[in-house]
């Protein structure tokens, strides 16, 4: 029915707009202001970035506004356009899709607003419109885990990889990084399977269950982020299997606890807090008219049972 359709659309639009209004920050005034468009705010690494930005922003008196398109590339484009309309000092974008953002950052650049890529970069075509990229390199994270695996297993073993959403940049890069580490060490590590669990702890649990059924001789599990690694760990515990070494990426508090307890054997700590800090510093430099390097990388710290006590405070 036409009336109920229009009515329903209006109501859901009102609910949607009111919820977005609740979730975003205040509008920026004059002075040093930054407009940030996330890729998906509901992830611990983004929370850490935001904390880094807010803490560093206090030093410079920055007025920071955040938008969250929840992994929708089209929403991100319209949010970037909203940022352009607000005329901030700098626009920060964490690309959902490297190609889809290009049109929006082009508009921002043409409006005379500097654009900075954070955490997930745009493609080569987009680079002509951006000043710098600040983030961690997922390839390096994968490589660090690969090295940890080789060291912990003497370079031999049967490995299963539990990945994020198929086709995503981080997924491909972390896998490639680990494989390169194995190749460089000339390790004899057999990759039995790479199954997606879409960054979900619960999905990783059920996927790991099935992998354990399929391959009774697994000794290494590489979860492409800590929530998935911990989900896999639960499946392993529930099945009673022993001697399986689990590795993750992120450096989350619960993963560090698991390493301390001897349940996990390593995680590649993403220093996302530093990504936030460096972003604000770079934005400030750009707003002052200074040059910034084309790439600013936050380091990746491998956390192992040997050094976990030293690095524990940095786990997030």
């Amino acid at each position, binding site marked *: 029915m036409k009336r109920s359709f229009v009515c*329903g659309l209006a*109501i*859901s639009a009102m609910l949607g707009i009111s*919820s977005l209004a609740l979730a975003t920050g205040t509008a920026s005034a004059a002075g040093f202001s930054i407009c940030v468009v996330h890729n998906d705010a*509901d992830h611990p690494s983004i929370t850490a970035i935001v904390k880094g930005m807010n803490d560093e922003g206090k030093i410079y008196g920055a007025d920071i506004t955040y938008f969250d398109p929840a992994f929708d590339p089209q929403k991100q484009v319209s949010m970037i356009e909203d940022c352009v309309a607000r005329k901030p000092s700098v626009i920060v974008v964490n690309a959902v899709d490297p190609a889809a953002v290009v049109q929006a950052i082009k508009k921002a650049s043409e409006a005379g607003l500097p654009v900075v890529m954070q955490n997930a970069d745009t493609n080569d075509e987009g680079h002509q419109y951006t000043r710098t990229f600040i983030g961690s390199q997922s390839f390096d994270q994968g490589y660090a885990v690969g090295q940890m695996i080789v060291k912990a297993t003497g370079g031999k073993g049967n490995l299963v990889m539990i990945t994020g959403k198929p086709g995503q940049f981080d997924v491909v890069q972390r896998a490639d990084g680990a494989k390169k580490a194995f190749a460089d060490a000339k390790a004899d590590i057999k990759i039995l399977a790479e199954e997606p669990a879409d960054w979900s702890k619960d999905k990783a649990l059920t996927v790991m*269950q099935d992998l354990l059924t399929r391959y009774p001789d697994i000794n290494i599990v590489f979860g492409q982020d800590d929530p998935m690694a911990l989900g896999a760990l639960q499946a392993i515990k529930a099945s009673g299997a022993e001697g399986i070494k689990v590795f993750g990426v992120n450096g989350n508090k619960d993963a560090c606890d698991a390493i301390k307890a001897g349940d996990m054997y390593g995680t590649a700590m993403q220093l996302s807090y530093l990504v936030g800090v460096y972003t604000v510093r770079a934005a400030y430099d750009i707003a002052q008219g200074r040059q910034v390097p084309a790439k600013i990388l936050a380091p990746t710290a491998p956390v192992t049972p040997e050094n976990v006590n030293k690095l524990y405070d940095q786990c997030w």
Partner: protein
Amino acid sequence: MTMTPGKEIAKGTEAAARGFPVPFAHLGRGRSGAVIRVLRNHTALILLVVLVIAGGLLSDVFLTPRNLLNIMWAVSILGIIALGQTMLLITCNFDMSVAYVVGLSGIITVLAQIAGCDLVTSMALGLAGGMGVGLVNGLLVVYTGANPFLITLGTSLLAYSASLMLTHSQTLYATIPAFNVFGRGRLFGVVHYSIVLALVLALVLEFILRRTTFGRTLYVIGLNETAGRMSGLPIQRVKLITFVLCGGTAALAGLVMTSRTGSTVASAGAGMEFDSIIAAVLGGTSLFGGHGGALRTLVGVLVLGVLNNLLILLSVPIEGQQIAKGLVFLAVVWADSVLRHQ
């Protein structure tokens, strides 16, 4: 409960009048079509049997008790959500907010525990939160007459925002160890509690659907709401209660999931709104309302679980997995329209 043939024939002639050439719809009429009718009326069960036999033949670990229990444990959460969704689908309504209610209820429960509430109170608060969202859905749909699909999409955004605000986008951890037993423990050390919960819930809802006036009213609303209203049935109240029920089952599933993984995530239930509808339709619930059952929905959920399990056991490449799931969905929707347009 037997449906009057008049309604189905009426829908068939309506389809014929519109000139829809629904493939194979001409089969299954009359005495010779009896076998085909049996096949159609029990599509999910037959599909399940076929998949199980194929699985047993293609993989030597598929039919082990451990694997079968794993499958049931994996889908028990979706099963609980699908059961609530089935009740709504029978009345020709949808609840697209279940996915974010799953996350929200888990978050409420854990926050309550962190604030010092005991186990039972925290779980009651989580359930109440989900039922509250269901109430909002029901009130909006019943009193504005608007499209439930769109309304519940709107409330899902509200629920998601509430989740993000309550947690400041942090991950929260349950503080009462006994809570984890709910999602991870096993009855007699063998069958997981969540499987038992899903089964018991299905039996209770099946009884309600078949043997109570409330249950029968759901079918009436789905088949012919006007006739139901004119015979004096409390249509508005029943719809409202069903929306609250659906929110409640989503909340229950959220509690199980949070206790299973030990931590909260606002988007924990992502995708489950569609999966629950697919499972219900697979089990014989019609998207056009008026048909469906609780136990049959569990069969649909099992089909999805077996499918997921086999895709990994048989090492099907990732692209093949998506194609397989897409084909199952299309086949199910086609079978549903064939069955309803007889």
